[in-house]
């Protein structure tokens, strides 16, 4: 096993682990804010839930990008033959 492969595996693991931290914090804040809003204004719960879902999907995409980069490193690495 050469250095490029070792670096790719390490890079993939680091990408997923650190790429999950930011979106997790962001999603926590978003859900907390939505809970707060629903508690204050329960009649707007439908609109809030829909907006929350779309926002969560947007935030989650960042983690998914990291996952795709990790998979590219592991399975479609252009530097490994």
């Amino acid at each position: 096993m050469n250095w490029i492969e070792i670096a790719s595996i390490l890079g993939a693991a680091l990408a997923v682990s650190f790429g999950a931290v930011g979106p997790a914090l962001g999603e926590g804040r978003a859900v907390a804010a939505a809970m707060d809003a629903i508690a204050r204004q329960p009649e707007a719960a439908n609109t809030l839930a829909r907006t929350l879902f779309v926002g969560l999907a947007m935030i989650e995409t960042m983690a998914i990008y990291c996952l795709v980069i990790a998979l590219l490193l592991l399975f479609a690495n252009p530097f490994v033959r």
Partner: protein
Amino acid sequence: MIGSPLSIATVFHLGPVPITAPVVATWGIMAVLAGGSWLLTRRLQLRPSSPQAVLELVVEGIAGQIRDTMRADPRPYEPLIGTLFLFILTANWSSLVPGMEPPTAHIETDAALALIVFVAIAWFGMRARGPVGWLASFAEPNLLMTPLNLVESITRTFSLLVRLFGNVMSGVFVIGIVLSLVGLLVPVPLMALELLTGAVQAYIFSILAMVFISGAVGDTARRDGAKS
């Protein structure tokens, strides 16, 4: 699915063209959806039978979501959005059929779906504002934003594609890994979670398509359309 998630298995060759497993699954789902709709709408009555009532519930539900999200008459958008939603939902849930892999777990199917949305955004934008007005909408709010708006129209299509691919593929991948470690009953909760993810992703995909289309159509054009 335990090998590379980016490679696809070829089922058979149609002349020189290799036909892959996701293509077969896609055509199967299309046949089921189209055939089912044809069978159910063949004898529509004023007093609905129970299958017709379920069908009306689905159509009305999608129309209500479009009306709430876009704040416009859902009729011009429902064929596209409804088909996208039902197709992605069926595709994501097709992993319940033994031996079948969801076609949305392969990047090519998602690329095709995102391309449909990309073309639809341009089509509805041009129809509502005219070609010149649609091109001018890239220079909003001012001319300096034009490059950013152009880049955004590409990147949001790309993120639509990567989001659906990443979510569905990661679910299938995790189930495959767990299945190779412990065979019996342990993957079942993960599969249930995968059903939820599949439904949420289908919903998100269609909601985002609606948001992008209503952004391209614009406020004034939509209000005029709602009035007429």
